């Protein structure tokens, strides 16, 4: 099971946080800080898996992360998940974002965190992996966006495309 999915930038600013376990807002912030602290001090060429921080469950949990440009994508998972599988999932996630946002960059995530959530919801559901096929994910996301567009007022839609 996946316990949390965090995206933050090189300075530790959260860009997306998705907890599949309940924590108070304060704890969530602490977890983000702790995770950032753990992940950011690691060298480029070391392993992408490490033990989770104390707040998120300690050594029973693993942090699996990838660092893309200015962003860290971190998945906190228990021992039922394969590290390489999750690493691959992160790649699928990022590639999907890249397709959906056309050249995704940090700013896209900053301004459209809701869209990122919607994409993530097609991949992971309640801490379990729902879909790993990028084409399927994009198809479902697109279909929902289309539906949304057909519902939205014209003046709103002009406001929403960034």
């Amino acid at each position: 099971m996946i316990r949390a999915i965090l995206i933050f930038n090189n300075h530790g600013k959260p860009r997306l946080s998705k907890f599949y376990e309940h924590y108070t807002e304060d704890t969530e912030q602490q977890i983000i800080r702790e995770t950032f602290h753990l992940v950011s001090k690691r060298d480029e060429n070391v392993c992408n898996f490490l033990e989770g921080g104390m707040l998120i469950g300690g050594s029973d949990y693993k942090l699996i992360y990838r660092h893309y440009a200015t962003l860290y994508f971190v998945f906190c998972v228990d021992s039922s998940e394969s590290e390489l599988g999750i690493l691959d999932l992160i790649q699928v996630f990022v590639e999907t974002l890249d397709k959906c946002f056309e050249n995704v960059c940090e700013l896209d995530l900053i301004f459209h965190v809701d869209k990122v959530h919607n994409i993530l919801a097609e991949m992971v559901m309640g801490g379990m992996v729902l879909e790993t096929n990028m084409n399927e994910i994009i198809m479902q996301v697109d279909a929902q966006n289309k539906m949304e567009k057909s519902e939205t007022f014209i003046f709103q839609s002009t406001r929403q495309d960034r």
Partner: protein
Amino acid sequence: MALKIVKGSIDRMFDKNLQDLVRGIRNHKEDEAKYISTCIDEIKQELKQDNIAVKANAVCKLTYLQMLGYDVSWAAFNIVEVMSSSKFTYKRIGYLAASQCFHESTDVIMLTTNQIRKDLSSPNQYDTGVALTGLSCFVTPDLARDLANDIMTLMSHTKPYIRKKAVLIMYKVFLKYPESLRPAFPRLKEKLEDPDPGVQSAAVNVICELARRNPKNYLSLAPLFFKLMTSSTNNWVLIKIIKLFGALTPLEPRLGKKLIEPLTNLIHRALDLLYGMVSKKNLMEIVKKLMLHVDKAEGTTYRDELLTKIIDICSQSNYQYITNFEWYISILVELTRLEGTRHGHLIASQMLDVAIRVKAIRIFAVAQMATLLDNAHLLTGNMQRNGICEVLYAAAWICGEFSEHLENPMQTLEAMLRPKVATLPGHIQAVYVQNAAKLFSTVLKSQEGSTEGTAAQETSQLMIDRLPLFVQSANLEVQERASCILQLVKYIQKLQQKEVEVAEEVSALFAGELNPVAPKAQKKVPVPEGLDLDAWINEPPSESESEDEQPKAIFAKEEPKHSRSRHTEVDEKELARRREARKQEQANNPFYIKASPSSQKVYQESPGVEHIPVVQIDLTVPLKVPGLPMSDQYLKLEEERRQKERADKKKKEKKKRKEKRSGRGRRHDSGPESEEDITPAHMVDIVTEEMPETYILPTPDNRLLTMSSTSIFLFFFIEQKSSKHKKKKQKKEKEEKEKKKKKKHHHHHRHHSDGGADESVQNGTVEDEEPLPVSMCLTLNHKVCDIQGNLQDGSQVVVSVIFENKCDSLLKSMEFNVLDSLNSKLQRPEGSGPHDGFTVPFQLPPGVSNEARLVFTVQSIVMPQKMKGTLTFIVKNEDSSIHEKLDFKLHFTCTSYLITTPCYSDAFAKLLESGDLKCSSVRLEEVNMPFHHLLARICFHHHFSVVERIDSCASMYSRSIQGHHVCLLVKTTVSIDAKCDEPTLLGNVLDEIKQTFSQC
């Protein structure tokens, strides 16, 4: 009512949406908390309105604030309201908010049961989907109990999209309401065989989670999972199942046996992957790991598999990834220690290949082979049964052929004449005998040169003593060679007794270097004048005759068809056919080195190439380690070498940085105020917001790398408004790109003015009246690398970017960032995080331009690449500042990896004949320009140099930063035949050339 809606809509226009909120927060760094608290007040107002759109917008913003750590549970009821909207857009916002902040003790959750039930049964699959997703995050025991039945029904929904979600959420339901497991399980099990892979995967997921908690209960599913494991292609499912079996096997030992086969299949697949994964950098490491596995492997089949894989990996694409052949020889020698391998001949052929083709390695190889011969008894313990003694074939041949490199030829000679050799297979003995003769000649030469005459005679005596053993051999080849050589040596001995110096003449027997010959070598030997190879020597038999003789004649089948017109004129077709037949024959003839397919055309037409080609692989070998090699040594040395390089580089950079820092101090730079977040390291720099009085160009020391002589330019002009004054000869594609960028930029800017903050009006006018054109001129250029010393760094690309400020405001805090791809990475300045943006070390007052350089490391250069990036900067006016962002693409063409390298025609010819180059050609349509213009254009745009020009064609050459050779033959008919050792690279370069000419 209608009025109300209109009024609501108008209200909405003045609301902040999520983007405005985010922007506002970013613009209020100093008093973020205060700003957010006003925003929350606004949101509270919005939530009080009746308009659901306004509410949804407010809830959307709350979701964002929740991520920043603000408690938004007070709005729980409003969230439920938004969830209940009939519009999917709002429903989704509501469910997202709920999933982010609802939990078991949220009391309004009780109110949602009916709404969720309604959504679950909605005719719109996405309403259902959104509800399931939300529910998976905040399901409580009550909800689980009340909705378990509804969800169970959904597990058989017609849409796979719903089915997979329903299946997956069942796990959460089981956790909260365990009683539901028993009734739901049969259906869940059924879903393991669902036709949709997504549903299947979800079912596997759920059962694996369940089984992890209590494996015993799921043992009965093992056969089903076994079937899935062998049939599924979904990696995710495979991983899950293997994990599950990991939990099940301790309970059922028989399972382990069954799993061996599919699991080894998976391992083999992994080995195949390795093949594609290796690079110059990791080859040694990977092979080291594989060698460990070889040592540990139990079955010989698996060990042999590993062995062939190691050799495959190392030898692929002409040893492309091997940087140190001493290491490779050592690996091969280490592999000979494998017991019972069937692949002795494979190792042997590799040894021969490398020793022949890599001249520089011969001394080392010979020393290694001598050691092997010396220790032959270790290999031949039970030689007849295992194939490893095949390596002695290679060892003996190498020691004989390159005997001049032997340190102690006498010792090797003795080793080759040991009686035990007679137990080796015949063909190996034959090679031993022949090469003993070669060695003998070398030994004679050295002994005659020295003072003692008797030594030479003793050597002859040794031969005469030992050879009779081989003369008696049952193997004809051995016997024949041995008796020939025995007689020869006896004769030599006679001469020696008369004190005649024979060494010169004996060595003449084996004189001449044996070089590998290219497949086309024969063709390059000119046909003597007057000799017509296609003419008949005798009159061809008549048709009737041939028919009569058909059954007897060997070639009869082919003859009749052509016999008539044959000897006067031979038509083209026939010639082609014969050529083909000859090629076939050559291909089957071991004395020809095999041709690479389709490389013929270029040779035929390339002018002035008369040489008999010789394969040249000159690889300098930097290291020499005496003694029996351990491949690990090389790995260590290699690491040390790389580390040292890194350290050197770092040192240099540090130095530069220091200088840079002091330079900055002088300049009173206001420092890079990074996009938004300030880390302590940056803090020191941010002293003042003021614009620098004068602008000082960065000194050359600030530059990351000095430019090489070759460079090409890529222009990106990015402007906000229609560029009437820009009538540039730019290709359409780029213009389109531009427009896109413009558009993006535009939007972004407008948002800003929407921002509702004080500057909005002003910005609006600024934007309307005066465009803010920013022109970026990107220069791509490459560092020429010393390939000999340092193969790894033939991978740096330097990009010079000229920033020009065309607006009336100061531009500052420019940060340049690129999304690294697997293949290309931006080299960040030392001190910043590995993926930080590159802070442009200057500010741009209005009208000023300056240049910054970025270094990229590129791994593979065979494909062109586009890198996406963003430039963020702050536009500072007198009383406001705006954050701006430009998206851009960096296009690394394959051309940009080429370096103009002069090449002499004879070297060029040799290169063409080497047979290592792949061939390709292209026609340029509608090019009307003088030939020399055409050539000049290729030289200029694509970094080629003209090797030779003869009448209607010209040969051109260029070299990539990683040392690929690219050869062109350009004809006035504007066709280009090209050759390169990397077909992909060649294809791309040709495409680019074609494009260059399609633009003119």
